[in-house]
């Protein structure tokens, strides 16, 4: 009897062990299938989110075909027509308020400032002689290294013909993907061709002048000394006084006009 009972117990234990192993195996398969499903689903959702983020709100310009005229050259010319400028400085020298803009020509966010806030500032404040804007070009955005510096040094060279702002704004209006090396000599010449009154050959020659390198180094030093880490960044103050950092939460013109109006009342 006892041996039969033992046998039954052994059979039962063996059967239970088999059942448990089968259950565990089935659960493992089910869980791994679930994990694969969740991972695949998450990957699809993330891919869609990235696609929307990269392209959905993108206002980037179309590729500028070789030999084609840059877009918006007439609009940019009209924007600055009749406004005094000297080198990197836009506006009258005796304007009561100065805005310093630290920006990179390859930086897409800087282009957003240029498109969203700058036209209002130029039209309402610079044109009336109440504001001057100083552009301090930075050269660290995008890849490969050096591409951004080529654009910035040409803009500074264009500044020697008082065409810095037209070149920079036309550049932004035709800006390409920051991670492609598009700031070639021919591309720069193409943009320069859209700036009325700019002698590109002269500007190319001025690009390598020591004064251009000095201006780039000065802009970089001032950026670091101001404690900034990204572009665009801004300093704002009464002309002749030490400006303070202007931190904005968007490029709504009101983010700039409010502090400017406050300074104009002082």
């Amino acid at each position: 009897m006892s041996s039969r009972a033992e046998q039954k117990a052994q059979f039962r234990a063996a059967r239970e062990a088999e059942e448990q192993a089968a259950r565990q195996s089935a659960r493992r398969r089910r869980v791994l299938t679930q994990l694969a499903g969740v991972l695949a689903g998450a990957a699809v959702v993330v891919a869609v989110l990235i696609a929307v983020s990269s392209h959905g709100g993108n206002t980037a310009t179309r590729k500028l075909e070789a030999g084609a005229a840059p877009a918006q050259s007439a609009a940019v010319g009209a924007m600055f027509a009749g406004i005094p400028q000297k080198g990197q400085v836009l506006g009258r020298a005796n304007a009561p308020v100065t805005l310093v803009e630290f920006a990179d020509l390859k930086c897409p966010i800087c282009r957003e400032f240029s498109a969203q806030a700058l036209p209002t500032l130029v039209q309402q404040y610079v044109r009336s002689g109440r504001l001057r804007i100083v552009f301090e070009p930075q050269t660290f955005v995008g890849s490969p290294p050096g591409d951004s510096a080529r654009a910035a040094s040409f803009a500074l060279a264009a500044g020697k013909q008082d065409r810095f702002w037209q070149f920079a704004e036309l550049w932004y209006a035709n800006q390409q993907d920051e991670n492609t090396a598009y700031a070639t000599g021919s591309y720069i010449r193409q943009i320069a061709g859209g700036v009325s009154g700019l002698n590109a050959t002269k500007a190319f020659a001025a690009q390598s002048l020591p004064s251009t390198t000095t201006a780039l180094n000065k802009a970089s030093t001032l950026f670091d000394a101001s404690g900034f880490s990204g572009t665009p960044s801004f300093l704002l103050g009464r002309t002749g006084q030490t400006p303070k950092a202007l931190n904005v939460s968007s490029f709504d013109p009101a983010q700039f006009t409010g502090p400017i109006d406050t300074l104009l009342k002082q």
Partner: protein
Amino acid sequence: VTDRTLRVVIGVLALAGLAIAAYLTYVHYAGIKPLCLSSGGCETVQASRYAKLGGVPVATLGLAGYALIALSVLSRTETARLAGAGAALVGFGFSAYLTYRELFTIDAICQWCVASAVIMTALALLTTWRLLHVEGGGARPAPELAARG
């Protein structure tokens, strides 16, 4: 690690992420500057086009994601574990993309975003662990097994 411990840790982390996302959502709609350790970094990131997705602030999307993960620990069902892991993995993937954009496109770092990305990474690991290693529903043994023997 018991399911209870995992749920508590996941819940606490999700609430921390929820607080960060709520703060950044408030900052966005109030139009004020976020508190930031680096000069201008947070404002630059918040002002960038990557701060919105289809017109909706990404902080608001984060808010929804953290809320879903927090809710998933209130239930011990397999569906809740799947939903929690799914939300955390999506959050982790998108946070990684946004961190890449901060470093290589915007060239500015927002500490709040980095903190959120770290929390979401931890949540992705913990919710996946919970999905793999916790058995369904914390249920008691089935009656036929309990009665056997």
